[in-house]
């Protein structure tokens, strides 16, 4: 009997804990507008994935892998696709320092012009590591919203940073799962579906 009660109370406690974990709801999501400028932070090919996701979501977007602040022009949302690829950096003719300062300048300019920042991490666990993490810790805090393919957040880095900064975080099972949330985020009135 005692054992039974103990098990029941354990289950109840677990349910209570689960219920107490705050879940991001669409009501918490920011209002974002088009057109978008999609750029890379780290020159991985994930930026191309973001381009196709935006296309699938029917968004008006410009993809510029190594965008500069001059390209912000009439842009209403800056999308930063974070993930370092040494090969990608090589092809772009950039080293890590140059890439970091390019992205810093771009994010600074966007902040000055009140252009919201949407950060995407689409490469999963394989696109984590010392170098990618440097970009994540440097730029996630400036995001208005963050989307991450779940396996990339196994260690909870995204949860920690977004929790600290009160930034809505959406975990995706797969990259394709970003399409619907993107449609919602960029709806004219951004009303929950």
């Amino acid at each position, binding site marked *: 009997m005692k054992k039974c009660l103990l098990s029941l109370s354990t289950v109840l406690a677990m349910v209570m804990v689960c219920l107490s974990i705050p879940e991001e709801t669409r009501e918490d999501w920011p209002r974002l507008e088009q057109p978008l400028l999609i750029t890379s932070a780290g020159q991985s*090919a994930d930026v191309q994935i973001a381009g*196709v996701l935006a296309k699938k979501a029917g968004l008006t977007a410009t993809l510029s892998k190594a965008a500069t602040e001059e390209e912000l022009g009439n842009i209403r949302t800056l999308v930063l696709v974070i993930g370092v*690829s040494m090969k990608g950096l090589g092809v772009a003719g950039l080293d890590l320092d140059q890439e970091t300062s390019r992205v810093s300048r771009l994010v600074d300019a966007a902040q000055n012009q009140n252009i919201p920042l949407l950060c995407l991490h689409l490469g999963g666990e394989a696109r984590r590591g010392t170098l990618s993490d440097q970009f994540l810790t440097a730029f996630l805090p400036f995001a208005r919203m963050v989307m991450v393919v779940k396996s990339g957040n196994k260690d909870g880095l995204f949860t920690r940073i977004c929790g600290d900064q009160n930034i809505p975080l959406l975990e995706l099972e797969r990259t394709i799962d970003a399409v619907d949330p993107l449609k919602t985020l960029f709806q004219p009135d951004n009303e929950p579906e």
Partner: protein
Amino acid sequence: MRKKFLIKKRVSSVKKILHVLSAIAIFFGLFACQSNHIEIKKPPTDRHQPYNYVGHKGMVVAAHPLAVQAGLEVLKKGGNAVDAAIATAFALNAAEPFASGIGGGGFMVIFLAKEKRVTVINYREKAPGHAYPSMFLDEGKVKDEWRRIHGLAVAVPGALAGWTYALKKYGTLKLAEAMERSIQIAEQGFSVSATFSHINKDEYEKILLNSGESSPYLFEGLPYEPGDVFQNPNLAKTFRRIAAHGWQDFYNGDIAQSIVEAVQNKGGLMTKEDLSSYSPIEQSPLKGTYRDYSLYSIPPPGAGGLHTIQLLNIIEHWPVRSWGFDSPGYIHHMSEAFRFVFADKARYLGDPDFVSVPIQQLISKEYASQIASKILPHNVQDSYPPGPIDKDLVNNHNTTHLNVLDEWGNIVSLTQSINDFFGSGIVPSGTGFLLNDHMADFSPLPDSINAPRPHQRPVSNMAPLIIFHKENPFLILGSPGGTRIFPSLTQIIINVIEFGMSLDEAIEAPRFFSYSTQGKARSLFVESRIPPEIIHSLEELGHTVEIRDAFDKFFGGAQGIMILSGKKIILGGADSRRDGAGEGY
């Protein structure tokens, strides 16, 4: 007193448990001895933990478990090492399509146990007949994209011709029989690994550019995620077509037409005549020695074997064992040797059918001694010129890897590739296979010894190896990894012979790499497992160190088989930097 009693009681309980456990172990041990089955432990959950596959009759080691199964099935049914190697190669085309396949080429080293003879089959791709030395220059500047993601990047594939040649001459299976399992894999599909997904994402831009969102290598226009099921019905259809119509269909028939159309649509120069005139060649192996070991590999245009021999010759001059594994002295000397060897590669290596390659000089002990004497113990050099070669002595003779050992002692060590992951990204319409970008292995500089010329084979870094110890096969080894191939293989060999590591320990051990271009040292790349204090010491010696991931596929994906006690124990080692696997029986 009570405490003592309790401890005693505990000790006695522990003893009892140990007795019971030992009894169980002895019971199962005896049971295992009575049965003839080889107990194969499951690989550890942590795939980076060194693990040697064990066999007693034969072994297959390759870059994907399904490919290993394909080869092992053939061996168990009585096929020989060549049969199993070709079945494994076809299966790799289906299961690891981004690294090799019928759209590419390669080399195999075969040891025929009965004849005690080693031979090489060279099925490296060739330049199209309309190739010319300056084809990668645009207004005097190198267009790198033409070399990698353009129709001009595609060289005439040799894999299918090479596999067919090997089967006909040294195998027992018909081509269609060797393809059975690969058709099944392509049709039924398999769960995508994290490695596959990561590489698919890395190469997404190229795939999108050259085969579009409907590419068989994308899922709903996006890269595959780990756990997705990857099927390739078009590849199965192509394989069935080859099984029914013969390999000639690839070089003369409808498949040839699809290849030419795909290449020309992307700006390439390949013609149907280029395909129909392709043939593999059989060559004598290149032989070198390291202490009392003999090493057999491929001759040029394969550079990997030659440079592995050259590096081992240089290392013979150093007390590497007393320096210690991953000591600053060892890494420094090795890196300096890599840089001198790369200078030789750029200066002297080409296709020996077209240019003179001083093979015997480059692999001579005297030449190695000259290089060893140039290497300074306490600092990096200002420049790395190629060594002086006596031109009068020049003789004119003359990326996946798998190994198979059969029950008769025949061996195949096979390395092949489509060059970059997902090759050129071009998939001939409806065929499901990727075309290579091996024209990038030619130098883009028209005055290079390795500049593209009609029907010439580009220099390759591949180095399938078979190492003998006192006449007995001892180690079968190879790796993908481009320019890192021969530096990585050399490290594995030294890990085994000098540092006494087990096979997979040697494969998984932290690696490093450096090279030189135009006489100048390039960075020293190291896996992050090399301790910071060693890296600091290397920086003090003048190296610019770049730290890569802990187990970085940049350094290759080596596969090995080690034969111990006259073939009584066979060990297989497969690199966890990729999806390597092995199985013995």
